[in-house]
C-alpha cells in the first residue's frame, strides 16, 4: 500500500493499516489496483478552502473526472495541491459504455492525461448510456438488460481499459424505467457485463435501494448475487422520495435501509474502499465527512476489523 503523509509528516493511512492486521477478510483485488483504501468523500468546490487550509485527515477523495479534463486554471491548480497530500480516485460521468456509438477518442485522450496526473489506482464510470451520434444527454440513462447490450458494453469497457492502462470499474446506476426488451435482471446484467469485460464493479448500494423501490425487487437479492470478488469500490449516498418513485439526488444523509445494504455488501466483499456522494445542498466538510465515517462502524460490526 502506498503510504502518504500530510505536510506535518503525520501518517494518515489509519484505516488501511488497521485492516491489514485483520484476519478473515478479502484482500485488495486487481480491480482496484490492489489498494486498500478506507472511507473517502467526493472533492467538491464548497470544501476546497477548508481542505487546503485545515488539511483534515481523509482516507481519500473521489473526483469527477470531467471537472478536471481541462487545459488549465483553478480546478487543476486545486487538484495538484490536493494530490500533494491526499489519495485521489477518478470517477467519470460521461464515458457512456452502454451507448451504441464508439468511444469518444478526444474524451479518452483527455482522460488518460488526467489518469497520469492523478495516478488513480482505478477509474470508474457508469453502466449506462447517454449519447447518440455524438450528441450528449448528460444523463445516466438506463440499459435494456439484453445479451446484445452486454456484449457491446463489455467490448467498449475493454477498449477503454486498454487505452487508459488502468483498471476500469463500472457502477450500477439508479433507474426509473425498465425496458420490455430486457432479458435478465439488473444484477444478472451487471454480472454478464463485468465478466465479459473482465472488469471490476463500483457497487452503489444507494442506487440499488433506489432502483429496488422503483422496480419492486429485493435489494438484498441484488447485493447477494453480484460477483463479490469483482467489487472494487462501494458508493453510499442519500436520495429523495416522491409520491410514486425515488430519485437519486445525493442531497441527504444515508438512510438506515441503505446502511443495512452496505453492511450486507461488506460482509460479502470484505472491507472495500467506500465513498459517500453528497453533491447537492452540500453541508459543511465535517458534516459530510462524519456521515461518511459512519461506514467504519459497519465495517467493525460486520467484518470485525
Amino acid at each position, binding site marked *: 500500500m502506498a503510504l502518504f503523509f500530510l505536510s506535518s509528516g503525520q501518517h494518515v493511512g489509519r484505516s488501511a493499516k488497521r485492516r491489514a492486521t485483520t484476519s478473515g477478510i478479502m484482500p485488495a483485488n486487481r480491480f482496484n489496483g490492489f489498494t486498500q483504501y478506507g472511507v473517502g468523500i467526493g472533492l467538491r468546490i464548497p470544501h476546497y478552502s477548508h481542505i487546503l487550509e485545515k488539511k483534515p485527515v481523509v482516507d481519500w477523495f473521489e473526483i469527477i473526472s470531467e471537472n478536471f479534463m481541462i*487545459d488549465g486554471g483553478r480546478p487543476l491548480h486545486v487538484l495538484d495541491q490536493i494530490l500533494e497530500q491526499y489519495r485521489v480516485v477518478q470517477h467519470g460521468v460521461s464515458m457512456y459504455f452502454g451507448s451504441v456509438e464508439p468511444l469518444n477518442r478526444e474524451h479518452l485522450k483527455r482522460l488518460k492525461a488526467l489518469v497520469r496526473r492523478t495516478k488513480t489506482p482505478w477509474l470508474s464510470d457508469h453502466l449506462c448510456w447517454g449519447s447518440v451520434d455524438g450528441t450528449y444527454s448528460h444523463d445516466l440513462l438506463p440499459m435494456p438488460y439484453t445479451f446484445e447490450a452486454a456484449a457491446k458494453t463489455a467490448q467498449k469497457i475493454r477498449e477503454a481499459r486498454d487505452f487508459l492502462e488502468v483498471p476500469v470499474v463500472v457502477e450500477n446506476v439508479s433507474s426509473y424505467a425498465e425496458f420490455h426488451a430486457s432479458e435478465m435482471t439488473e444484477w444478472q446484467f451487471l454480472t454478464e457485463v463485468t465478466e465479459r469485460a473482465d472488469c471490476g464493479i463500483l457497487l452503489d448500494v444507494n442506487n440499488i435501494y433506489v432502483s429496488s423501490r422503483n422496480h419492486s425487487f429485493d435489494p438484498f437479492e441484488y447485493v447477494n448475487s453480484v460477483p463479490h470478488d469483482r467489487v472494487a469500490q462501494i458508493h453510499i449516498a442519500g436520495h429523495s422520495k416522491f409520491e410514486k418513485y425515488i430519485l437519486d439526488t*445525493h442531497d441527504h444523509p444515508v438512510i438506515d435501509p441503505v446502511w443495512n445494504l452496505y453492511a450486507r455488501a461488506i460482509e460479502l466483499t470484505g472491507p472495500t474502499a467506500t465513498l459517500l456522494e453528497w453533491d447537492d445542498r452540500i453541508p459543511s466538510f465535517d458534516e459530510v465527512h462524519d456521515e461518511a465515517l459512519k461506514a467504519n462502524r459497519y465495517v467493525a460490526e460486520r467484518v470485525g476489523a
Partner: protein
Amino acid sequence: MELDRIQRTMFDAVRQPLTAGEGMRQRTRDGKSLRVIANEIIKPNDRLTSFERLEIYNRQYWFRILAALSDDFPGLRAIVGERRFEKLATAYLLDCPSRSFTMRNLGSRLEVWLHEHPEHIAKFESIAIDMVRLEWAEIEAFDEAAKPRLTEADLPGLGPDPKFELQPYVQLLDLRYPVDDLLILVRREQEVADIVSNAVTERIRSHARRRRLPKPEPVFLAVHRADNSVYFKRIDKEAFTILCALRDGKSLSDAVDAVDWSGRPIADASVHVQQWFAYWSAQGWFCKNA
C-alpha cells in the same frame, strides 16, 4: 428490439421540449404520440405508466442543461429577462444540443446562433451579443491552457522582428457596450455551483435580476487569468489592435504598423507601446513560441 433502436427512440423522446407546465408533451415535434413511443419501449409499473416513467428522464434532461446554460450566462439573463432567456435557451439547445462530453461547452455556439436568430434578443441585440461574447470569453479564460511564459532570456532568440504568441487564456474583445461592468454586478449576486448529481428533482432557478442597461460605449477588453482568477482588463484601442495582430501571427513591426496612430504624436506612441509591452510581459500574456 435492438439496442440501437431503443437508444435512438428514447433519446429522441427525452430531448423533446417540455410543456409550459414542465411535463412531457403528448406528441413529438413531428407529430408522433409520445404515449405510444413510451409504451413501445418502457414497461409500466404499479405506480407509473410508461409515459410517466419516460417523463422523468425528459424532465431531468431539460432541467439539467437549462440550469447549466443559465449558470454560464447570467449576464444575458439579466439583459433579456428570465422568461425570454428560458425561451431562447430552449430554442438554442434544440438547435444546438450538446456535442461534447462536458457541459462546459454547452454555450460554445450561442453567439453564432443568436446572430442567426436575432428575434430572441429583439430590442437588445447589440448588448446581448456583446454579453454573450464576454461570458463565453470568461469561460475560455477560466480554464484554457497556460503555456510557459516568455522571459527576458528568450527575447534574443526571437530575431530582429519577433512574433509574440499570446497565452491561450487571453481573450480579446471589442465591445459596443460596457458589459464588463454589468457582468461584474450580476456575478456578485451569483453563488458558486458544483452540480454533479445525476438527478435533478426540480428546475434549479437562480434569478439574475434585470438591471438598467448601460448606454453604448466602445470598450476594448482583454479577458485574462491571474492567480487562477479571471479578470477583465480594459485596454486602449491601439493596444487592442496590436494584441489582435500578434494573436493572428503578425510580427511586432507589422502589428505596430496595423495601428492608426493619427490621433497620437509619434513620440507618445513609442512610449505607449513600451509601457503596454512591459505590462503584458509582467502579466505573462506572452508565451514561449511553439
